[in-house]
């Protein structure tokens, strides 16, 4: 199953829209995210890819020019934790596809582990939420499952396209698990039960892989999770797919580090409210953290150490950080999160990279995403000014080389009510 998705991802990747017109963004200040800004630079996008970046580059014949004089040109922002494409209205169950909640038809021992569940086939490329987010500068997102001890697998998508294959960047992008208070219910309470169960599942998946043939013949001991789950965990055990663990309390993060070390897993911490308290250990283990910046309340007993300076302190200790909003409809507030990280001690260039280059590196797609470099995917945004400032306006959004109309349900409702006259609204002139 995983292999099929990987194949699909690879396919869609070579299938960037070949017919799209070349675009040349000229005269803007180009913030590439991997080097110093280029004043009055040009970015050329052809066949879905960036083909030139610099101060003096030739503009291909027939390219559409976008005058960005006085504007900022940046890579599209990457949001690392959303349910975009799998949620429409969060309170309406039928429009939510991020979590397996009804476990009545499953075996008792399965309810904590949904490793084989991958969000990809539930993705709706025509989600009304996607345009709401992308017109504000977010071009790529990791959409993730939730619930249980092991929630399943997420996908990285570009926010354009009519088929799942057309938007998928990588699927699955990571295996999601929780050592947080939100997972307590699935194991009946204590933290050590979460880790005990997580270890049991990893042990079973390992033993299964060693004895696949015996398993098929029914000659192995009973395993505590399903065959599909154990299959899904193989790339995680092999270190090819990251285990993304939600953990907030410092000791819970240390527990995740311990398990990752024991099983030689590629670990990413998401949430990480108290990560700053164990920054040295995270840096030594080279484990990155996905940080929601606007999180400074002791909202629970696992987040007593919450501080707006989390991102800055982690970075200072050498931990790689991606900034996330954790939102879906408001995923575009990622720029507000990054701006606040600056206000609380993170250098601007680091905050900017924490929503562009660093998430691309953390998710293993920096060869194609995260900066304005020749050969990378043509996800580019033109802003009226500093993208982290809230008064800055988005002027152009280009995804895979195609300019997106700056229209969403939210702007259409706005426009529909510019005139309060009932007739004009209900029967607009075409």
């Amino acid at each position, binding site marked *: 199953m995983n292999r099929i998705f990987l194949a699909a991802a690879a396919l869609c990747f070579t299938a960037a829209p070949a017919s799209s017109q070349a675009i040349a963004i000229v005269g803007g200040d180009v913030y590439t995210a991997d080097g110093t800004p280029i004043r009055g630079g040009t970015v050329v996008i052809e066949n879905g890819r960036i083909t030139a970046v610099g101060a003096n580059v030739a503009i291909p014949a027939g390219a559409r020019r976008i005058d960005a004089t006085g504007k900022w040109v940046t890579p599209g922002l990457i949001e690392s934790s959303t349910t975009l494409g799998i949620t429409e209205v969060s309170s309406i169950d039928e429009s939510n596809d991020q979590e397996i909640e009804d476990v009545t038809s499953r075996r008792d021992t399965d309810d904590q582990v949904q490793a084989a569940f991958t969000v990809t086939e539930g993705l709706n490329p025509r989600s009304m939420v996607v345009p*709401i987010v992308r017109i504000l500068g977010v071009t790529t997102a990791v959409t993730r499952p939730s619930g249980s001890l092991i929630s399943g697998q997420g996908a990285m998508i570009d926010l354009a396209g009519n088929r799942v294959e057309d938007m998928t960047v990588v699927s699955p992008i990571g295996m999601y698990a929780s050592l947080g208070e939100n997972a307590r219910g699935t194991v009946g309470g204590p933290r050590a039960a979460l880790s005990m169960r997580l270890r049991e599942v990893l042990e079973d998946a390992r033993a299964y892989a060693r004895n696949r043939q015996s398993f098929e013949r029914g000659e192995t001991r009973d395993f505590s999770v399903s065959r599909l789950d154990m299959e899904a965990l193989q790339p995680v055990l092999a270190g090819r797919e990251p285990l993304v663990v939600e953990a907030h309390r410092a000791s819970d993060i240390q527990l995740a580090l311990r398990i990752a070390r024991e099983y030689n897993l590629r670990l990413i911490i998401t949430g990480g409210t108290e990560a700053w308290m164990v920054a040295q250990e995270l840096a030594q283990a080279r484990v990155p953290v996905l940080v929601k910046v606007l999180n400074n309340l002791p909202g629970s007993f696992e987040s007593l*150490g919450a501080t707006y300076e989390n991102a800055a302190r982690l970075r200072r200790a050498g931990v790689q950080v991606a900034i996330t909003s954790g939102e879906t*409809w408001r995923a575009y507030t990622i720029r507000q999160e990054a701006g606040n990280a600056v206000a609380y001690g993170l250098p601007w260039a680091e905050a900017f990279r924490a929503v562009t280059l660093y998430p691309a590196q953390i998710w293993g797609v920096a060869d194609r995403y995260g900066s304005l470099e020749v050969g990378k995917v043509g996800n580019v945004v033109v802003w009226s000014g500093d993208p982290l400032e*809230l008064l800055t306006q988005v002027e152009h959004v280009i995804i895979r080389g195609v300019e997106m109309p700056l229209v969403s349900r939210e*702007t259409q409702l706005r426009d529909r*009510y510019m005139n*309060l006259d009932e007739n004009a609204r209900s029967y607009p002139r075409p």
Partner: protein
Amino acid sequence: MKRALCALALGAATAACSQGQARPADSPPAPQSVPRPADPVPATYRPVPAQPPHIRGGTVMTAAGQIIPNGQVLMVDGKIAAVGETVQAPANAVVVDATGKWVTPGVIDTHSHLGVYASPGVQAHSDGNEATGPNTAEVWAEHSLWPQDPGFVRALEGGVTSMQILPGSANLFGGRSVTIKNVPSRTVQGMKFPGAPYGLKMACGENPKRVYGNRGGPSTRMGNVAGYRSAWIRAADYRRRYDDWDRNGRKPGDMPARDLELETLAGVLRGEILVHNHCYRADEMAQMIDIAREFGYRIRSFHHGVEAYKVRDLMARDSIAGSLWADWGGFKMEALDFTRANLAMLHQAGGIAIVHSDDPTGIQKLNQEAAKAVEAGREMGIMVSENDALRWFTANPAWALGIQDKVGTLEPGKQADVVIWSHNPFSVYARADRVYIDGALLFDRFDPSRQPKTDFEVGLFPAEAVR
């Protein structure tokens, strides 16, 4: 202040009002014609005495129409004494250099649940919804409020000097709100904003029918409306009985039986308690406006009003404020039609636009929420001035809470609630450097001795753990 408190005490004798205060605890109760204190929860907050702060050199944004580059603000005895390019300061004034900074009135939030849904958000702290019946007009938020909620201090760090604490939205009538000054205190009484009127929380739509749908109702929006109207009929009758008693000389033996629920509702009908109505959808707001007209009360502010832009003309016509979010929406059916332009569109229609939080994090960044809403307006060609956008989280919420003559702008005579910002407050990089409440420096970002902590945050970690 005393007059306002007396006014609040429904049908109370004037004598009771003066006797309700400052009576030594050990003396026997004085005989009263009406066996009811003027104010059951009297405010004990008193401004912290301070030498007169004299702010010089910053960009002063008064929220009353003026933006003064290199301006000055003088606070004396807890009040704004002078604002201008230069002011005459007394000899004992303390000069505060605000060169390169911005000076505004304190931030005011019309919609907070700090203290009633305190951090940490454990079940034991869930004190905001008396979800035991759809009409709990008899409950008062101040009886739930925990002054040690760390969220108060976080809000102070975000420049918030006053806020309304509301009951939740499970009920048609959620109960009385309380308006507080954001000052450290052991008691609710020590935070209560002296002289601020009470509010009544009402809620439309999905929440009441969801909570009571399987518990005897209401289970529909029409059931919600029947619930409001039935209550107002009883409240009008209750008010009439007290008016008759009043007219007939307030004979103690004839005093109508007290009813806490109807006391609050009758207070609304008398115009003494302000209605704060949680309502998302345009059609429901129009219904609530008609209900208010039917029973002769006014709605002071709709809250959340995700579809306010659709009825912005009705809200402007009746002077009903809109306490709105910059960009929350989509999370339930009645929030589906959100637009980021909501605040700007209400503002442009002449409505009273307010950016509110309903959130312990959002309350810390109301200036940023306003900035996002300003930007959304610009996208459609509505240019909101800095002064007007500043009013969205200062003067306009002050009006909605009925404290507009006391706070909300930097004008002489008003209470000296002042914020000094590191940057223009509409910048994401702006932080509140200093926050004054009634002229006292209650927060200073650069002075650890001026950074309050709640009891809850004391000793949470062993000392060696957080080095």
